[in-house]
């Protein structure tokens, strides 16, 4: 199953917060984090962790979600460590590789920024149910309706795609078992044979996906779906908590800008 930042049910401040505010906040923070270079990074990191705390996310859960990305962060760190010009701290003998002090700091900063960016995403998906997320996005994108972009239809499409991810994973497993039973080398074997058996997996999967899509379209039609405006169960609410969150975000924003340009 997909583990990366899966939604955890909860009723904390972070969970209750309007999805629109959360999306905006996380988008703003991820932009800010890459603009930051000095003390601002610390400030932003602290506020991200503070948000984790008010959302009652356990450290172990967050770490688990970020685990797959740590390797990337290490790679980023390594790249900057070895390929940045500056005062040489360490020259590795016989190899044209050297470590610079600037590289060390830069690598540390960039990989930390990367992890913070990932954390933004993880916080968003762990505290917001997919339905609310889609609903929030739909509301934020509403102005695009003026450009004749069918925002609501897109929202229905996105939520349906999310709904069918686990179904297709199950189907994939089923097909894999069926093909293995018939002698396809799905797991082991030479590279070219593996590639061939990949086709044996993907073709049936595609076929079934198209058949499902047909059935689904019919089922939706049978339940009265037509293009155009429709109402949804989940309503977003903009109350005191959202205002507080936005003010906090504004304060953070101005601090970061102040650090960056005034000091």
């Amino acid at each position, binding site marked *: 199953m997909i583990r990366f930042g899966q939604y955890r049910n909860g009723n904390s401040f972070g969970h209750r917060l309007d999805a629109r505010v959360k999306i905006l906040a996380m988008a703003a923070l991820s932009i800010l984090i890459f603009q930051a270079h000095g003390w601002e990074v610390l400030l932003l990191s602290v506020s991200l962790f503070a948000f984790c705390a008010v959302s009652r996310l356990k450290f172990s859960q967050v770490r688990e979600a970020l685990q797959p990305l740590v390797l990337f962060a290490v790679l980023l760190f390594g790249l900057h460590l070895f390929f940045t010009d500056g005062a040489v701290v360490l020259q590795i003998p016989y190899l044209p590789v050297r470590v610079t002090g600037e590289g060390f700091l830069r690598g540390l900063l960039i990989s930390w920024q990367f992890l913070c960016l990932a954390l933004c995403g993880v916080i968003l998906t762990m505290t917001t149910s997919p339905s609310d997320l889609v609903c929030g996005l739909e509301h934020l994108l509403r102005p695009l309706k003026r450009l004749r972009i069918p925002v609501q239809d897109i929202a229905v499409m996105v*939520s*349906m795609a999310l709904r069918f991810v686990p179904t297709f994973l199950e189907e994939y497993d089923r097909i894999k078992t069926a093909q293995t039973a018939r002698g396809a080398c799905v797991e082991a074997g030479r590279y070219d044979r593996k590639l061939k058996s990949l086709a044996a997996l993907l073709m049936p999967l595609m076929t079934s996906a198209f058949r499902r899509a047909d059935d689904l379209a019919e089922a939706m039609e049978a339940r009265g779906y*037509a293009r155009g405006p429709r109402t949804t169960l*989940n309503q977003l609410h903009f109350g005191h908590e959202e205002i507080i969150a936005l003010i906090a975000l504004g304060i953070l924003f101005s601090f970061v800008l102040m650090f960056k340009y005034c000091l």
Partner: protein
Amino acid sequence: MIKIQNVSYQYDGCGVPALNNISLEINKGEYMALTGPNGCGKTTLIRLLNALIRPDEGIVTVHGLDTSIAANHKEIRRTVGMLFQNPDNQIVGMTVEEDISFGPGNLNWPPQEIRRQVGEILKNLGLQSLALRAPHTLSGGEKRLVSLAGVLIMNPRYIAFDEPTAYLDPLGRRRVLQMMDRLHREGIGIIHITHDINDMVDAERLLVMDKGEIILDGPPRDILRKMAENPDSFISMPPVMELMHQLKRRGWPLTTDILSVEDAERELHRLLASMHREQQS
């Protein structure tokens, strides 16, 4: 009432018509079983009822509304609910409650009203504990009930079930059949596609189709008796019926009209009692 008058229908690129000059009336609150070999047009017939397909020839009207007029479709789809063979392809929401709200959303009900009705229907079907579950975590029987809830919330007058008990374990099967029975008692017309003779026996009316035509239409017992005598019939006998037939062939004084375990029990009881009386006299 749903009226089908001289309807023919042919799928694109298919040589033979799926339905051939069919006329049929389905009454309010009726429990109708529909059977026939695979590919005989059962599913096509029920797809006509809710305007998913429009007849090539003839007219289908639901409460007087013609299905070939697009402006009637919303009302028709509200009146006639459909449950497809595979509930996996019918559930569109990311959570159970969201899926149930899909139909009312399409009808533009206000959100508070949707919330209220969803709560009511969940309670009614005993699904409250599943409200926030993702569809892929449900069992087969639960999936059927969730897709049924999604149809029921629109307050339909008829529901067409396309093999609702396929792939279900006995418990899931029983739950779904009990639910259908309850809906029928509440006055909803049921159209039940099935291959299982046990499902047909208790229906009020049985329709048998073959090659796009209705070949038999009437009380299930009469039709099933006729079909039981025909060795080429596509219906497979339940074991109890088979047993009674064989006993009769051996000369036991039994009537052939035995379609269920209850019938068999009654008949054997009668026989044993009369044997007992003979011995005593």
